C-alpha cells in the first residue's frame, strides 16, 4: 500500500501520458428496424431508442461474461456517475450477445449489481434479431465467447458513430463522449 500511495502522488500528472490504447474510427451504420426487449420486459423499437437528440453509447455484452463485459460495464458505471455529477444523464445501451440466457430477469439483476441508474438499458431479443444488430454494427460474432471490447457512441447531429475498440479508461471514454456531445 505504501508503494501504491507514493506512486499515486507522483503519477497524478502523468496518468494519461500513455499512448492511446484503443482504436477510434467514425462509422455509418444502417440500424435494422427491429424490436428488442429491455430489462423490464418491455418491447422497445431499437431505431427509436437510438435516434435520440443526445449521444447514445452502445456496447455488446452478456450477463455471465467473465472477462471483457465486466470491464465495459464498469466503464458505463463510471461514465454515468461522472456525467451525472455534471448534470448530464447519458443514454447507455448494453445489448446482449447471449439472448437465450439473458432474460429480462437476468438483465435486471445485472443492472442492479452494477448499480445502474436510469438511462442505462440492457436489451435482449431473438437470436436472429440480435444477429442482425451485431451485423449492422460490424460486430457480428457467431459465439459469445469470441467477442471483443467495443463501445460505440452515436452523434446526434449527423447520426454517425464513433467506434471505440479496446479497453478504455474512464477519462478516455468521458472525453470521447463529451467530444460527440460537443462539450
Amino acid at each position: 500500500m505504501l508503494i501504491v500511495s507514493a506512486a499515486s502522488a507522483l503519477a497524478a500528472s502523468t496518468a494519461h501520458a500513455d499512448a492511446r490504447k484503443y482504436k477510434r474510427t467514425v462509422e455509418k451504420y444502417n440500424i435494422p428496424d427491429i424490436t428488442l426487449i429491455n430489462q423490464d420486459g418491455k418491447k422497445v423499437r431499437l431505431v427509436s431508442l437510438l435516434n435520440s437528440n443526445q449521444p447514445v453509447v452502445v456496447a455488446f455484452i452478456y450477463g455471465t461474461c467473465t472477462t471483457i463485459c465486466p470491464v465495459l460495464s464498469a466503464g458505463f458505471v463510471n461514465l454515468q456517475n461522472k456525467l451525472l455529477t455534471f448534470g448530464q444523464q447519458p443514454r447507455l445501451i448494453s445489448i446482449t450477445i447471449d439472448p437465450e440466457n439473458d432474460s429480462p430477469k437476468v438483465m435486471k439483476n445485472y443492472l442492479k449489481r452494477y448499480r445502474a441508474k436510469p438511462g442505462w438499458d440492457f436489451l435482449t431479443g431473438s437470436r436472429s434479431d440480435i444477429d442482425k444488430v451485431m451485423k449492422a454494427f460490424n460486430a457480428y460474432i457467431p459465439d459469445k465467447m469470441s467477442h471483443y471490447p467495443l463501445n460505440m457512441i452515436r452523434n446526434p447531429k449527423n447520426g454517425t458513430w464513433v467506434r471505440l475498440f479496446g479497453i478504455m479508461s474512464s477519462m478516455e471514454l468521458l472525453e470521447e463522449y463529451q467530444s460527440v456531445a460537443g462539450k
Partner: protein
Amino acid sequence: MIRIQFSITLLAALLFISCATNSYAAVPPPRDLPKAEIIRLGERMYRNGTLPSGKVMEAYIRDDVEVDSSFFSCSSCHLRAGLGSFEGGVVTPPTTGTKLYKPYQRPPSMGDTVDQAGRFIYAKTVIERPAYTRETLAIAMRTGIDPAGQVFNDVMPRYLLSDSDMSILISYLETLSAEPSPGASSSEFRFATIISDDVSQEDRQALLMPLQRFIAQKNQQMGMYKDFIKFGYAPTAEMKYAFRNAHLDVWELKGAPETWQNQLAAYYNNKPVFAVLGGISNRDWRPVHDFCEAQRLPCLFPITDFPVVSETGWYTYYFNKGYGQEGEAVAHYLNRMDKLPAETQILQIIQDSPAGKALAAGFETGWKELERRPVKSVTLTASQLLDQMSLGKLLAKHKPGVLLLWTDAGLLQRLPKLIPKLGGPGMVFVSSSYLGEKTATIAETVRDKVYITYPYRLTPYVGPKTGGFDAKVPILASAKDFGDRRIASRSTTMLQQATLQGLNLIYDNLYRDHLIDVMSMQMDVVALDYERISFGPGQRYVSKGCYIIQLGPGTAPPLLPRSGWVIH
C-alpha cells in the same frame, strides 16, 4: 472509494528501483488465524469479493475505472478451480499456489500475433514469467506488474488490499486446487452413471449403450497410444493427457428416494469417481443433485424431467429445466400475447402427479416473475379428471378463456367437448412431454385451439460442419418424435460435445472444479435434439428454449411453431 490514480509505467519504474535497492515488503502468512478460518475468509474474497471485514474489494482498471467486487470477483475470470480461462480472446492465467510459485508459460493465443482480420490488439497477455513469491504476488495484485516487470492485460483490476487481507488471499490461493480430485490419475478416469429402479429396461439400454461405447472407445484409443509408443514414436507433452483408460461404474438406486443418498454414499466410498456421466430416473433428481453438491462431484446431463431448478447449484449440468421449463414457456407466451384481454380468466387444471405439479410450478414461477396476478388452480386425481360432470361444472364455474391442462393423455379425446365450454378466446395449453406420443391424436376439429409445449428442435438439423460420420441429411422434427424421450441421442450429445471436450481441456489439471469450469466456458453447440445448447459461467441449464406449437392436419401432422425457440 478513495480516489487514487495510478500510472502503471511509473509504478513499474518505482518497483524496479525498489527491487534494486531493497527487498520486497514481506507478506507473512496470517499468524493469528487457524487454517480453516484463513481458507474460509480467503475463499469468500476469491469467490464473492468480500473482505474479512465484510466490505467489498476495491480496485482500478486502466488507471481510473473504479470497480469493486460487487461487480465481479477473482473467480469470475480465474474461475472456481483457479486454473484460469480463455474468453473474448483474453487468456486469464492460473492463480493457484501450485502454478504461481513455478515459472509459467501460457498457451498461445490469437492476440500474440498480428491479427489477420485487422482487429485492434487488446488481448495481449503475459506469455512467460518467472515464479512468484508471496511478496511479488502481492505487488502483482496491487500494481499489475509481474516479477519480470511485465505489465498485465488491462482487464486485470489492480486491487487496493491491506497487508492482512492480502496475506489471507495469498494463503488461500496456496490451498486452491492443491490436491487432485479423487477418481482420476495420469492413467485413468473412473466414472459412474446412476439409474433408479423405476426405469424401464428399454430406457436403461438407451442410456447405457452410448456410455459403454464411449468407455470402450477411450480404452481402445489407449491401446492404440500404447502401440504408438511401443513402435518408437515420441509423443508430444499434450498427447498423454488425451489418452487415459476409462472405467464406468453403474450405480443402481433401489427403493424409496429417501434412501438414495445413503446408497450413493456407499457406492462412492467404495470407489470414488471423478464425475457422474449422465444417469436416468423418472423420479425427482433432487437426492442425487444434493449428494453431488455435498461431494463436489460433477454430474453431467442426467436424463430427468425433474431437475433441481436452482440459481446456485454448481455441480450438476442439466439439459434444461424439465417440465418446469415447459410451464414457464407458457407463462412467457401468454404474457407476450398482445391481443389477450387483460381480464381473461386463466385456469390451471393440474393432475395430481409429479409431472402435473412440476408443469404448474414452472408456469407459476414464470408468471410471478412477470409480475402477473396468480391464476386459479385446481388439482385433480386421474380418476377425478375422468368425471365428466364435475369437470364440466368446474369449467362452467370459472369460464376460463385460457385453460392450462397439465394432465396426461387421458383427457385428450374429450377436448372437443370441453373446449366449447371455455370463454373467449378459448385456448388450451398442454405439454407434449406429458402427453407423449398421444399428442398427435388431438382431434383435428380443435387443433386450432390447442397449444402444445415442445422443448426440442424444430428446424432441420444437418450435423456438425466439421464433417465426420454424422449425417448431413437434414433431420426434421415430426409427430413421431412426441413419444421419443431422446435418451440415447441426448446422452451422445453429452459425451461427444460437452463431456469429452471438457475432459480433453483439463490436461493434467485433474480437479473436478476445473472440469466444471472448462465446460462452462465452451462455445455454443448446435445439437441434434435442441436448437442450441449454450454455456457460460454459472449457467447450468444448457438448452434454454421451448416452442409453443400447434398441429397441422392429418394423422402425421406437421408441427407448426407459434413462438420462437426462446420466449422472453
